[in-house]
């Protein structure tokens, strides 16, 4: 292997299954990547919103278990969900859930083999961001009308 003064070369050394040394390409990581691009930012947001939704499932379980437990447990759950803290939490889960759902559709589109070129990637990226806003507002308009009536 050729001599190099770049310290990053050290992490590029790998071994083949027969033990011989080989220089492997380095995966993109935080230090070499601009994370504020549409492509990478939306990619990591898909993971963050997925993980957020996973934690948010606790509120689905609480909602169903409290309803099954009876009127008192239901009233306590409803009090929390309707409190300032509860509404902020539910709103955050709504944003994360719609983003993850819509970005998931974008991933399925890619899996189907469509939309890999940069212009389409940016267009579908904006589509996901705008649709997340629309769906979130729509969900909460429905919820607020139902709550008020």
């Amino acid at each position, binding site marked *: 292997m050729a001599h190099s003064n770049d310290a990053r070369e050290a992490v590029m050394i790998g071994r083949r299954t027969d033990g011989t040394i080989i220089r492997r390409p380095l995966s993109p990581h935080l230090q070499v990547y601009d994370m504020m691009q549409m492509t990478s930012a939306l990619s990591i947001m898909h993971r963050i919103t*997925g*993980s957020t939704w996973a934690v948010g499932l606790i509120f689905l379980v609480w909602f169903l278990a409290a309803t099954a437990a009876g009127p008192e447990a239901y009233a306590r759950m409803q009090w929390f969900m309707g409190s300032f803290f509860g509404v902020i939490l539910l709103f955050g889960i709504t944003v994360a859930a719609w983003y993850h*759902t819509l970005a998931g559709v974008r991933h399925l589109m890619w899996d189907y083999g469509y939309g890999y070129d940069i212009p389409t990637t940016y267009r579908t990226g904006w589509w996901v961001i705008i649709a997340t806003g629309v769906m979130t507002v729509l969900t909460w308009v429905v919820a607020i009308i139902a709550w008020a009536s």
Partner: protein
Amino acid sequence: MSDRQTRLQTPLRRVRGFGSAKNGTHHWWMQRVTSIALLPLTLWFAFSIAARAGDRWEVMAEWIARPFNAVLLIVLIAVGFYHTASGLQVVVEDYIRPDRSVMAINMAIKAVLTLLGLLAALSVIRLAV
């Protein structure tokens, strides 16, 4: 093939069962299948539950108990928790080292999600039957 090879095992035999050569294809495929199933289920649940914000207990319990809603809720719980477990597994595999920690954390995640999923499903069944 390297001339340094001294073992009789083929390269395929030596890598089988190591690294990523496990059940990746099935895992990847099931993530897609569950995500497609979750699309209509999520739309239905989000707007159904938003339209019932602030409902009294009697009304909400009766809504969950309807056979159509109860079945969809149980399917949503089953598919949703499966999808969550497989998604978190990938996140853990990507960011956690060493492998034994990955194994332990994924077992813990699956245990917690199984218990929560069963609790949610049992709650629906209790209201429905």
